[in-house]
């Protein structure tokens, strides 16, 4: 029987199901490769919800963790930093 019911109310339903022993949800460390910024966002289980949290369209970035590309449906391992690499470039004289 999962203990998740008495955990942090911020935790999402899917987290409660899959990570029952975690006391508090681990924040996700994110690195934006274009701006060089490092930030932490509340735990998100999947890439799609992380991008939603950051307000980013999945078609405009690569999401990289542990030297692998992640798809929106992939899970995030909160022990490792996630690199967000924007792909859109601009300028009309290129």
């Amino acid at each position, binding site marked *: 029987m999962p203990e998740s019911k008495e955990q942090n109310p911020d935790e999402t339903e899917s987290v409660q199901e899959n990570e029952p022993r975690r006391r508090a949800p681990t924040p996700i460390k994110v690195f934006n*490769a274009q701006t060089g910024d490092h930030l932490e966002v509340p735990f998100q289980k999947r890439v799609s919800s992380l991008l939603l949290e950051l307000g980013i369209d999945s078609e405009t970035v690569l999401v990289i963790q542990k030297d692998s*590309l992640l*798809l929106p449906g992939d899970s995030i391992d909160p022990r490792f930093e996630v690199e967000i690499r924007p792909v859109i*470039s*601009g300028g009309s*004289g290129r």
Partner: protein
Amino acid sequence: MNCRVCKKKAVTAIPRHNTAFCADCFDRYLMDQVRKTIKEFRMFEPDDRILLAVSGGKDSLALWDILTRLELDVLGYHLDLGISEYSRESTEKTRIFAEKRGYRLIVEEIESEAGATLPVIAESTKRPPCSACGLSKRHLFNRAARQYDRQVLATGHNLDDEASRLLGNILHWQDGYLEKQLPALPAEGGLIRKVKPLNRLTEKEMATYAYLNGIDYVIRECPMSADAKQIFYKKILNDIEKESPGTKQFFYFGFLDRSQKMFPYSPEASPPSEKCRMCHQPCYTDICSFCRLRMKLSPFPDPEQFNGTHPDVISLHTED
């Protein structure tokens, strides 16, 4: 999500084709798309020597890798724009990429060629930076192609670049630009043939290719692009694409299907008929826009800068 072809774990999804690929199948897909584009638009002749414009970004470095894999004869050309740290990084990454792979590369500096760095040119001529940048690149690419006996200039413009440019041109009914917005422009009046072999592939696909092939490119954005309209148009198209995958490609290729009828390209009507008095490159008036730009920056230019040719009488008041 699994690869639609071999069922291994997918590393990238392509919503407009409703598909996903593993790294190997993605590589096959991307190379097929480039081959198809080259063939469909008859971009290269068998013995063509290619000059490739290389900025140090994902598209141009990836294109260099792809054209080399296709066993084409490619010479890279990089123009250092003198935009502080950004240009230093771009030039360094381009050099390292070329050196590691044994690719041939020419590097020129806008400061030596035009008399000032791009930020200074933009500031002192009151031109938008991207416009001064485009003008200088067109001139210097064409000059390098002639100097190094290259028949065709390839650039890394991708589907997002072309679709966003098309949107901008249509919104402002730029008939002259629409007529020339083709993936392969023939040589005319001393201007070299130009091709865009990546026009079927999105920015995301090109970034994915670069990542999977270990290409170390400049990720940060050119600081002069901050208010570039093109980024705004790209965003609009991406918002539409999200609601309706495939629209971007349909929009751009739909235009190409109709462009001959709607905006017929008429080479004989437009080629530059004159030679610039200063640099002897093709131009529409007696002094080309690049030399005029150079003169605005330095009214008493060193004749050596003009390929050793002395300008005869220079009118400093010639306007664009």
